[in-house]
């Protein structure tokens, strides 16, 4: 991995009235990494992701992508600069086919995309996500795993440098989860850096190069999976809240 971080988050904070959802979070993600964000429920993981993708404005702090300051930019500009996002609760655009959904990302993901180029990107994204056969089906026909593939395909079509994923595994059966893990690996092998939130520990252990642990809105630890799971504070944070989840992986 090269020395310069691709995505930098510095001093990120967000308060809703009196509630401090995220407080002074710092981390860096290097090109080609798979970076996981874990933590007990309510730790502020999704809020952090929302702040990075521009769905929320931070109370303090900054976000930089490849040297560009994203902090004041609206989400569509961040997308143009290379930030892709797939959502936890899958939200396909209804009344459109799979292809049309992905085309939105392809047509608008970067500034000035020609129609031909957009079609190409959409087709490639569908290939990569394994949805090429379903491209003309209405999105209502998809099962859960297919919907998640669609989320990723849509994000891929925007030609991201960094892909933000939120709990992709939620609701998937073990066989499906294995396929989803493959998909994430394939995405990284294309050269896309991945930042993902996850609760399922075996997945984090298998996929993540480095892990950020959050609790109560702050960063608790950063390191490899082995390092953070050995960290006493991390174990306590989990034992205090979700005993089962922490034990699940080991």
């Amino acid at each position, binding site marked *: 991995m090269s020395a310069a971080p691709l995505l930098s988050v510095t001093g990120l904070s967000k308060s*809703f009235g009196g*509630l401090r*959802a995220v407080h002074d979070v710092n981390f860096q993600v290097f090109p080609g990494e798979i970076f996981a964000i874990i933590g007990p429920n*309510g730790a*502020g993981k*999704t*809020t952090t992701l*929302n702040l990075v*993708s*521009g*769905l*929320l404005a931070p109370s303090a702090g900054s976000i930089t992508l490849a040297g560009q300051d994203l902090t004041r930019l*609206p*989400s*569509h500009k*961040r*997308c*143009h600069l290379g930030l892709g*996002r797939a*959502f936890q609760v899958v*939200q396909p*655009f*209804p*009344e*459109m086919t799979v292809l*049309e959904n992905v*085309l*939105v*990302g392809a*047509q*608008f*993901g*970067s500034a000035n995309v020609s*129609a031909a180029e*957009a079609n190409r990107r959409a087709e490639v994204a569908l290939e990569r996500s394994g949805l090429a056969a379903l491209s003309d089906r209405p999105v209502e026909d998809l099962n859960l795993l297919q919907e998640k593939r669609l989320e990723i395909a*849509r*994000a891929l079509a*925007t030609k991201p440098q960094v892909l933000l994923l939120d709990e992709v595994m939620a609701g998937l059966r073990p066989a499906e989860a294995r396929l989803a893990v493959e998909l994430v690996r394939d995405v990284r092998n294309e050269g896309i850096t991945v930042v993902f939130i996850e609760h399922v520990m075996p997945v984090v252990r298998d996929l993540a190069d480095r892990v950020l642990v959050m609790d109560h*809105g702050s960063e608790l630890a950063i390191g490899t999976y082995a390092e953070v799971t050995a960290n006493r504070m991390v174990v306590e944070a989990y034992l205090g809240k979700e005993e089962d989840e922490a034990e699940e992986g080991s």
Partner: protein
Amino acid sequence: MKPRINPLGRDLLLALLFFALLLFLPPLLRGAFGRASVSYLSLGINALVLATLALSWDLLARTGQLSLAHAAFTGAGAYSTAILLRMADVPLWLGIPLGGVVAALLALALGSVTLRLYGIYFAIATLAFTEVLKTVVQELPTKIAGGAPGMNVTALFRPTLAPGMERWELAFVRNQGYFWVYAALLLVAVIISIFIQRSRLKSAFTAIRTNELVAGVMGVNPARLKLLAFVLSSFVAGTLGAVEAHRLGSVSPDGAFAVSTTVLALVTPIFGGLYTTVGPILGALVLAGLEETLKRTFADGYLIGYGIVLVASILFMPRGLVGLLSGIAKRLRRPGGGQEGGMSSARAMTDEPFTAPEETP
């Protein structure tokens, strides 16, 4: 790869064909029905006006902005041309499109401040805006805008009786002129709609309408596109209002900014089929036909018919006439298959609408 006719080109061709038909309709009617053609043309004019009103409202609705301010823009157009004529002697061929421009500028202003308003909040804000605008116009110096009673306006067509011409032919020529002007305006609206539907704008608008946050994250610029829709919608509405002013011969605050205009503008596309080019037009054809009957049966309370149509559409016909017809077509093609129409209160007549961002910690 087999060659396909460009859908955009095909649609445009169909539109031009339709317009050509409209062009020849008046003389055809005259030949076939003589004196009676005058009232048929009147009906036609009503249908064209309603269709343009409906289509222009639909343009805005495609981005999820359900506006109750449509009357503000038709009214703005009407008053602009009237005031320009009165104060600066601006000729009608210039004043009318300028009415559209003024309405568009107004929409730009309104649209910019309401970008973060959704659903009922947006609706109420636009309604409030219309009322304020109406009062502003009413309170303008009487010299300029005529105050509460309004003022008279020159007619667009004032044919004079030539020797040998019968009385009804005068009315016919007048109606014919207006018919053509409205047809041309509808054509403009239709072309705008087709260009949107056959370009990447269609999916962008749909994305914004169904989930603005996700659309943004995928690179769509919701602010810019919502404003674009607003400007296009109100330009058409404003121009329509301007022509109406010159046809009716007068403008007044209550008339130009009447809530009934907005009601018609929204009920018609909902009934006919939202987010399509054909839906609003189809809805207009049916409702304009009904309007005569409604007015005769209910006099002042004729809008009750529209209220009933609105309620019935939402309960029974979520996808409007267009949806109904295509549902029937599908079932004919696939007997035994086919989808549920009906009171699907869960299945929206609009797509899952975007609800304002929920701030989840």
